[in-house]
C-alpha cells in the first residue's frame, strides 16, 4: 500500500513539468504558432527560477522568476516569428539552442548550491488516508497549480468567446483577420502564455523535483512536451492522459527494473514513449479518425492591411 502511494507520488512529480510545459505549448499551437523553443524556454526558466529562489529564499519568487524568464524568451520568438515573419521552425530551434547557452551562463554562479525544495501541503487527518491521502492533500503547490492550469485552459478554449477567437486564428488566420480580429496580437499573447508555462515547468525542476541547478537539467523534457501536444491532437483532455501516462510508465519501468522482471532495460527505457504514442494514437482514431491539427499551424501570417 505504501509502495503504491510512493509510486503515485513519484509519477505526479515526473508528470507535472511535462503537463505544465505542454499546456502552454498547446495554447500557442491552437493559435497557429509552432514554437519549438520549449526546451530553451524551460531551461532558462530553470536557471532563473533557481537563481530567484536562492537569492530570496522564496520558492514562490523563484517560480515567478521562472515565469518571467520564460515569457521574456517567448517574446524574442514572438518578435522574430510573428513581428518579422521569420520561419517559425528555424526560430524555435534557434531559441532552444540560445536558451541552453544562456541558462548555462545565468546558472554558472549557482552550480553546486542547494536550496530547500518547495514544501508539500499537509492537511492533518486527510493526508493520512492510505493510498490517496498524500496524493490529494499532501502535494506541493506546483502539482495543484498544473491541474488548475489545464482545467482553466480547457474552459478558456471551449467555453469562452476569447478561446473561440484564439482557435479561429489557429485554423484560418485570413478569415479571423477579415473578421477584424488582431491575429498577430492574439498570437503574441498565446506565445507569451506558452513561454510563461515553459518557464514555470523549467523552474519546477530545481525548485521541487531535484533542488539544485545543473546546466542541461531539463534533459529533453521540452521536446517530450512538444511531442505530447502533437500526439494528444491538440486536445487538453488527451494531453492530461498523455502527460500522466508518460510519467507513470517512466516511474513504473524503473520499479520493474528494481523488482528484476528481466526485460532488457533498454526496452524499458523506450517504453514510456512507446506506450504514450500508442495510447494517444488509439484515442485519436477512436474519436475523429483524422488529424485535428490547427489548420494554420506553423504558417506565417502577414496582415495585408
Amino acid at each position, binding site marked *: 500500500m505504501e509502495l503504491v502511494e510512493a509510486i503515485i507520488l513519484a509519477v505526479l512529480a515526473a508528470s507535472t513539468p511535462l503537463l505544465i510545459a505542454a499546456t502552454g505549448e498547446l495554447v500557442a499551437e491552437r493559435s497557429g504558432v509552432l514554437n519549438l523553443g520549449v526546451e530553451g524556454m524551460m531551461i532558462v526558466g530553470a536557471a532563473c527560477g533557481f537563481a530567484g529562489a536562492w537569492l530570496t529564499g522564496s520558492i514562490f519568487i523563484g517560480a515567478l522568476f521562472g515565469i518571467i524568464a520564460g515569457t521574456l524568451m517567448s517574446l524574442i520568438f514572438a518578435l522574430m516569428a510573428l513581428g518579422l515573419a521569420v520561419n517559425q521552425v528555424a526560430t524555435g530551434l534557434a531559441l532552444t539552442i540560445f536558451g541552453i547557452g544562456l541558462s548555462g551562463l545565468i546558472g554558472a554562479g549557482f552550480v553546486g548550491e542547494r536550496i530547500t525544495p518547495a514544501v508539500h501541503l499537509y492537511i492533518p487527518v486527510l493526508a493520512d488516508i492510505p493510498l490517496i491521502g498524500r496524493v490529494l492533500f499532501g502535494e506541493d503547490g506546483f502539482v495543484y497549480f498544473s491541474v488548475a492550469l489545464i482545467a482553466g485552459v480547457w474552459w478558456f478554449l471551449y467555453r469562452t468567446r476569447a478561446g473561440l477567437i484564439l482557435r479561429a486564428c489557429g485554423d484560418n488566420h485570413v478569415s479571423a483577420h477579415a473578421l477584424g480580429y488582431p491575429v498577430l496580437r492574439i498570437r503574441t499573447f498565446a506565445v507569451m502564455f506558452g513561454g510563461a508555462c515553459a518557464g514555470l515547468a523549467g523552474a519546477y525542476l530545481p525548485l521541487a523535483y531535484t*533542488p539544485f541547478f545543473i546546466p*542541461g537539467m531539463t534533459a529533453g523534457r521540452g521536446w517530450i512536451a512538444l511531442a505530447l501536444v502533437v500526439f494528444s491532437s491538440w486536445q487538453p483532455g488527451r494531453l492530461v492522459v498523455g502527460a500522466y501516462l508518460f510519467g507513470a510508465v517512466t516511474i513504473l519501468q524503473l520499479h520493474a527494473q528494481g523488482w528484476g522482471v528481466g526485460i532488457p532495460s533498454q526496452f524499458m527505457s523506450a517504453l514510456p514513449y512507446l506506450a504514450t504514442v500508442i495510447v494517444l494514437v488509439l484515442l485519436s482514431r477512436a474519436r475523429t479518425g483524422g488529424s485535428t491539427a490547427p489548420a494554420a499551424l506553423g504558417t506565417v501570417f502577414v496582415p495585408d492591411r
Partner: protein
Amino acid sequence: MRKSLLALAAGLFLAGNVSATSAADKLKVGFIYVGPIGDLGWTYQHDLGRQALVKELGDKIETTYLENVPEGPDAERSIEQLVRAGNKLIFTTSFGYMDSTLKVAKKYPNVHFEHATGYKRNPNMSTYSAKWYQGRYIQGLIAAKMSKSGVLGYIGSFPIPEVVSGINATMLAAQTINPNIKVKIIWANTWFDPGKEADAAKALIDQGADVIMQHTDSPAAMQIASERGKLAFGQDSEMIKFGPKTQLTSILDTWGPYYIERVKAELAGTWKSEDTWGGLDSHMFAMAPYTNMPDDAKKMAEDAQAAITAGKLHPFKCPIVGQDGKPVECKGGDRLDDGQILGMNFYVKGIDDKLPGK
C-alpha cells in the same frame, strides 16, 4: 507536421559551445566533453584536469574545449573541428566517442588523439582510463557494513563493461561482509538526467534499499537519499554538499596528472600511442574522505584502500562464481586478467537480476 518533426530531430543533435584563448606558436590541446562543464560530475572533473594542465603548462600551450557534444556520428564533426582549428593533441573524454575518434585519427595521422575509457587504438591514438572497480570494491565493503535492510540500490547508466564490473566489484566486496546481501539495479539508460536519476533513487528506496550507489553523473540521487535519511556514495566528484549526512565516500576522478604527463610528452616529442589503465596506485582517481560511518567501518575502508594500492588485495581475485553457479575462468593466474575486466559482460553469483541484453 513532417517538417517540424525533422526540425525536432535536428534540434536534438545541435549542441556545443566553443571556448578558446588564442596565441601563436603554442601547442594547441583540444578537449571534447560529453556534458556541460558544470555537471559537477564526469565532465566537471575532466575540466578540472584541463585547468590543472593550464596552470602547469599555460605558457607553452593553449587549450580549447567543446562541451555538450553528443556521442555518435555528430562527435566526428566536433573532433574534426578541433583538428582544423590547429589542435595537435585532442582528448575525447567519453566512451561513446571511440569510433568517431578512430575515424578522425586515421584521417589525420599527424594529430595525436587520446580517448578516455575505450579500447580501440591507432599509432596516433592512445586510450586512458582508471580502475574504478577498485573504488567500487571499497564502496561495496562500506555499503554492506552500513546497510540495515541488507538491500543496496544501484543506479546504472548503460550496461557496458565498465559499469558491470563496478556492480560486480561492489557485490564481491559486500558479500565478504554479509553473504546474503542483495542489490537492486536500475538502469537509467542515460549518463545525465537529474530528474530520472532522482526517480530511480526514489524507486530503489521505496523498494527497501537503504544505501544508494550510482554510476550516473548528477548529484540528484545523493539528494534524494539525503531527503529520505538514507546513505549514498557520490560519483566522479565530491558530492558531500548535496548530502552532508549522507555521503559515505565518493570516487574522485583526478585527470590532471595524466593530462600534464601526456602534454609534456607531446611537447618533448616523445608522445606515442599507449594504453594507460591506472588504479589507486597511479593517482588516476582518489577516494573522498570516509564520512558518516563509525570508526571501525572507516578503518576497514582505509585498510582496504591501502591493500589495493599496495597490490595486496585484488577485487577480482579468483575464484569468482558467475550467476550460473559455475566458476569464471581465471586468465590472470590468481585473478581475472585486465581483458576479462575490461570486457566484463556477466553478473557474479548473488545478483538476482538479469544483465540487459544477455
